[in-house]
C-alpha cells in the first residue's frame, strides 16, 4: 500500500511537471500581455491628465496672493488672540511654555493690583521665538483658556534674525474680564 501511494505521488508530480512545461509558453504570453496591459493603463491615465491640462492642481502663488485660500489646518505662526477692546484671554499660566518641546515660548509675568487691593498674576510679555518654532501645535492644545491659536500667515522672511523674536501681547492689552 505504501509503495502504491508513493507511486501515485510520483506520477502526480510528473504530471504537474509536464503541465508546468506546457504552461511555460502560455505564462510567457500572459506575462507579455499583462505587462502591455498595465502599461496601457498608465498611459491612459497620463493622457487623461495631459488632455485636461486646465485642471491644474498647483497654486500659482505669487499671482494669486490676494485670493489664496489655505486649508484650515495650515499652521503658520502662533498668535495671541486680541478682541476689539484690546483684551486677550491669557492668564499667564505658562502651560504653553511647559508644553513647548524646544523653548519657543517664554512668558514673563507680573502682578496686577486689582481695585480691591488684591494681587493678581498676569502676563507682562508673551515672547515667541518664531525661528525656533516647528508649528507642532502643542502649545495651542495645552492652553486652558484658548488664548493662543495658529495663524495662517506664512511669509515670514526678514533680513534680521532678531525680528523673528516677537512679543505677542499688544501694547496696553489686558486680560478679558471673567477669564480665570
Amino acid at each position, binding site marked *: 500500500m505504501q509503495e502504491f501511494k508513493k507511486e501515485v505521488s510520483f506520477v502526480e508530480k510528473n504530471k504537474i511537471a509536464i503541465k508546468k512545461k506546457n504552461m511555460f509558453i502560455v505564462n510567457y504570453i500572459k*506575462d*507579455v500581455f499583462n505587462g502591455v496591459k498595465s*502599461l496601457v493603463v*498608465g*498611459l491612459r*491615465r*497620463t*493622457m487623461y*491628465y*495631459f488632455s*485636461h*491640462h486646465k*485642471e*491644474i*492642481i*498647483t497654486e*500659482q502663488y505669487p499671482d494669486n496672493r490676494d485670493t489664496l485660500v489655505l486649508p484650515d489646518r495650515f499652521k503658520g505662526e502662533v498668535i495671541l488672540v486680541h478682541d476689539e477692546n484690546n483684551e486677550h484671554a491669557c492668564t499667564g499660566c505658562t502651560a504653553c511654555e511647559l508644553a513647548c518641546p524646544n523653548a519657543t515660548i517664554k512668558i514673563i509675568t507680573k502682578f496686577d493690583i486689582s481695585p480691591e487691593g488684591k494681587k493678581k498674576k498676569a502676563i507682562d510679555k508673551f515672547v515667541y521665538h518664531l525661528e525656533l518654532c516647528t508649528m507642532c501645535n502643542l502649545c495651542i492644545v495645552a492652553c486652558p483658556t484658548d488664548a493662543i491659536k495658529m495663524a495662517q500667515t506664512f511669509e515670514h522672511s526678514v533680513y534680521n534674525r532678531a525680528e523673528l523674536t516677537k512679543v505677542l501681547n499688544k501694547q496696553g492689552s489686558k486680560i478679558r474680564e471673567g477669564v480665570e
Partner: protein
Amino acid sequence: MLSFSNISKSIDTWLNATFNSTWTMLFEMVIAGVGVISLFAILGLVLVLMERRVAAWIQIRLGPNRVGPGGMLQSLADTVKLLVKEGMTPDGADKFLFNLAPFIAIIVAMLLMAPIAFAKNFQLWDMNIGVLYVTAISSIMVISILMAGWASNNKYSLMGAMRSGAQIVSYELSAGLSILAIVVLSGSLNLNDIIQSQADGWWIFKGHIPVIIAFIIFIIAVTAETNRAPFDLAEAESELTAGFHTEYSGMKFALFFLAEYINVFIVCAIGATLFLGGWMPFHIGNWESFNHIMDYIPSSMWFFSKTFFLIFLIMWFRWTFPRLRIDQLLNLEWKYLLPISMFNLLLVTAMAILGWHF
C-alpha cells in the same frame, strides 16, 4: 512653389553659375554644416521646452510660464545660463578624454543627420545603405558615454557609463531586428527607396500586425538606446546623481544634453521614415483623388509632424513609467524583446515572400 528641394536646387544652380565646381562643393558643405548646426540649436530649444511642457501637463502643472510670453523663452534663458557658466574639469579626471567625450556625443548626432530625408528630394546624403549607416553610427554613441564615465574618475559616473554600455549594446539588437522587418518588406537599405515603397500606404498600415509589433519594439528599443526614462539607468538622478555626466558643467554638460535631444529627434525621424512613410503624405492605395488632396500638404510638414508625434510618444513614456532596474532591463531585452522580434522577423519575411502585405 516654395519647397526645400526648390530652394536647395536654386542655391545649387546659382553657386554653379558663379563659382567653379570645387568652390561650389566647398560652399555647399559649409551651408549644409551651418544648416545642421542651426537645426541642432532650434531643436534643442524646442524639444527642451516641449519636454518641460509635456511633463507639466501630464503632472497637472502649468510648466514654464515666467520667461517670455507663456514661458516660451525659458529654454533660451537656460541656454544663455549654460553658455556663461564655467566648464570645470575635475582634478582627478583624464583631461583629454573628459573634454573629448561631449564632442564625440555631438559629432555622432551630427553624423546621423546625413541620411535623413527632411522633405521630398531634400537630403544631405542620399546613400544606398542609409539604414545600415544609421544603425552603425548610432552605436558609436556608447563610446562617448563610456568615455565620459571613465574619464570623470567618479564611481557614479563609471557605474552609469557601464549600465549605459550594457543597455545600448543589448537594445541595439532588437532595434536592428525591428528595422530589418521594414528592410525585408521594402527590399532596400536606401531610406529614399523605403519612403518610395510607402507611396501607396505607410508600412504600419500595409504590414498588418507584424509591422505594428516591430514598431512597438522599435519604439521601446530606441527609448532605451537614447537613455531616456524608463530606461534612463545611465543617468538615474535619484541613485547615480546624473550618472555619466555628474562631473560635467557649463557648455560641456549642455552638449550632452543637446546630444540626448538630437538623438531623440533622429531616432524618431528614422522611425517616422521606416514605419510612417517619412515625408510621404498619407496615401491610401489607389484612391487617386484622396492622395492628390494629401499631396497639397508640403512634404516637410508631413515629415516633421510625424517625427514630433513620435517624440511626443517617447516623452509620454518618460513621464508615465517608473525606471527599470538593471536586471529588469536586461530581462526585458533578452527574454522578451529579442525572442519576440526574432519571431516577428520570421513572420515578416514569410509575409514578404508570400506577398501578404498590401
